[in-house]
C-alpha cells in the first residue's frame, strides 16, 4: 500500500516536472500549451478517496499557477474537474465505473475517449474562460479551447499508451 502511494507520488512529481520545465515552454503557433498534468487526474484510481483527489487538484493547480503566473485559473479548473470526476466517470463508463481496475485497461475504447475528452475539454473551457475573462473575446476563447483540447488530448493519449504498455 505504502509502496503504491510512493509510486503515485513519484509519478505525479515526474509529470509536474515535465509540465513545468518542458511543456510550459512549448508555444505551438504562439498560443498552444499542452496541459499534460491533467493525466494525474485521469489516471487517479476510482477506488481512491475523492476528497483527497480535490486536495491533490488544488495543490497541483497552485503549483502550475505559480509557474505560469495565472493566479488561480488552473487551480479553479483542476478542482472543478476533480469535483466533477465522479459524474464524468459515470457518464463515460456507465455501469462499470465502480470497478477499480476498469479504468485504462479492459474498457471500451469509446468509453476511454469520452472520459479523456470530457476531462480535458471541461478543464480547457474553465481555464480559458477565466484567463481571458472578457465576453468580447468569445471567439478567441472558443478557438483556444478547441485547439488546446485537441493537442492536449493527443499528447495525454500518447503518454497513457506508453505508461500502460510498460
Amino acid at each position: 500500500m505504502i509502496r503504491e502511494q510512493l509510486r503515485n507520488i513519484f509519478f505525479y512529481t515526474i509529470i509536474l516536472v515535465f509540465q513545468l520545465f518542458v511543456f510550459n515552454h512549448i508555444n505551438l503557433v504562439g498560443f498552444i500549451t499542452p496541459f499534460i498534468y491533467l493525466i494525474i487526474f485521469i489516471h487517479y484510481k476510482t477506488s481512491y478517496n475523492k476528497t483527497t483527489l480535490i486536495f491533490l487538484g488544488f495543490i497541483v493547480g497552485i503549483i502550475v499557477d505559480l509557474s505560469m503566473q495565472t493566479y488561480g485559473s488552473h487551480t479553479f479548473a483542476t478542482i472543478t474537474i476533480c469535483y466533477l470526476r465522479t459524474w464524468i466517470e459515470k457518464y463515460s463508463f456507465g455501469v462499470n465505473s465502480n470497478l477499480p481496475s476498469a479504468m485504462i485497461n479492459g474498457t471500451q475504447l469509446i468509453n476511454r475517449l469520452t472520459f479523456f475528452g470530457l476531462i480535458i475539454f471541461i478543464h480547457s473551457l474553465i481555464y480559458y474562460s477565466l484567463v481571458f475573462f472578457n465576453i468580447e473575446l468569445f471567439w478567441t476563447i472558443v478557438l483556444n479551447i478547441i485547439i488546446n483540447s485537441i493537442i492536449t488530448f493527443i499528447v495525454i493519449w500518447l503518454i497513457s499508451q506508453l505508461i500502460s504498455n510498460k
Partner: protein
Amino acid sequence: MQSIINSIVKNRNLILYLTLSIISFNSLYTNSSVHYNGIGKIATYLSGKSSFFSSSIDSYFNLKEKNKKLIDENLKLKEIELEYKNQIVENKSFNSISIINANVIFNSINKSKNIMVIDKGTNGGVDEEMGVISSKGVIGIIKSVTENYASIISLLNTDLKVNAILKNSSTIGSITWDGLNPKILKLNDIPLSSSIKIGDTIVTGGMSFYFTKGIPIGTISNYDNSSLEGYYEIDISVFNDFSSISNIYVIERTDNDEIKILLND
C-alpha cells in the same frame, strides 16, 4: 447537532470544493488586474441592481412623508403667489392672507346643493366663510365648522354666487350653477356691451370676503347674446374636476375684520 455533522460529512466534497474555489477566486481577484476589474464590474452591477431594488421599496414606504413635504411646500408657494397677485392689484405691502391645507373626506357632485367635508376644523384654524381653492382654482366657501371638520358649499351648489371677472377686460360678473352639468357653470351680469369670446379665462374678482383677485375659475365654453335683458348668458367650463378633488387650501383673509368694521359704520 448530530444531523448537522452528518450532513457536513456527507457533503464534505462539495464544501471543500466551494472553499477551495473561493480561495482561487480570491487569488485571481487580488493578483490579477484583469480579474480585479472584471469581478469589480460584476460586483458593481449586482450592488447597483440590489440597491435600486431596495431604494424603490424604501421610496414607496416614504411616499406619505414625501407627499406631506410637497404639500407643505405647495402651501408656502400658494401663499406667496396669492400675496404677490394681491400686491400687484392693490399695491398692498402687508401680509393679508394665510393658507391652511386640508384633505377632502366627503364630496358630492350629483345633487343641486352639493357640499364637501374636509378634515380641518376650528382646531386647524378653519373658520366659517373662508374661501376654499385647489391647485387648479376656486372650490367654494366654508359653510360650517366643528372642532375637527368643516363643510364647504362648493361651486356646484345652486345657493352659491361668486364674484368673478373676465381676466382680460376686468368686466365684473357673478358665477352660479344651474344644477345640471357639474363641468359647466354660468357667468351672469356681463352686459352685452362688453366683448367676449370663447376661450376667455374667468378669474375671481376680489370683491368679496372670501377670495382675493385673480384665482382661476374656468374658461368661456359657450355664450348666447340673444337675451332681451341686455346681458350675455355665458357657459363656463370649470378648471377643477369636482369629482376628483382630494387636497384643498383654505384661504383666510386677515384683513376681513377691518373691512367689516368699515362696512358696519
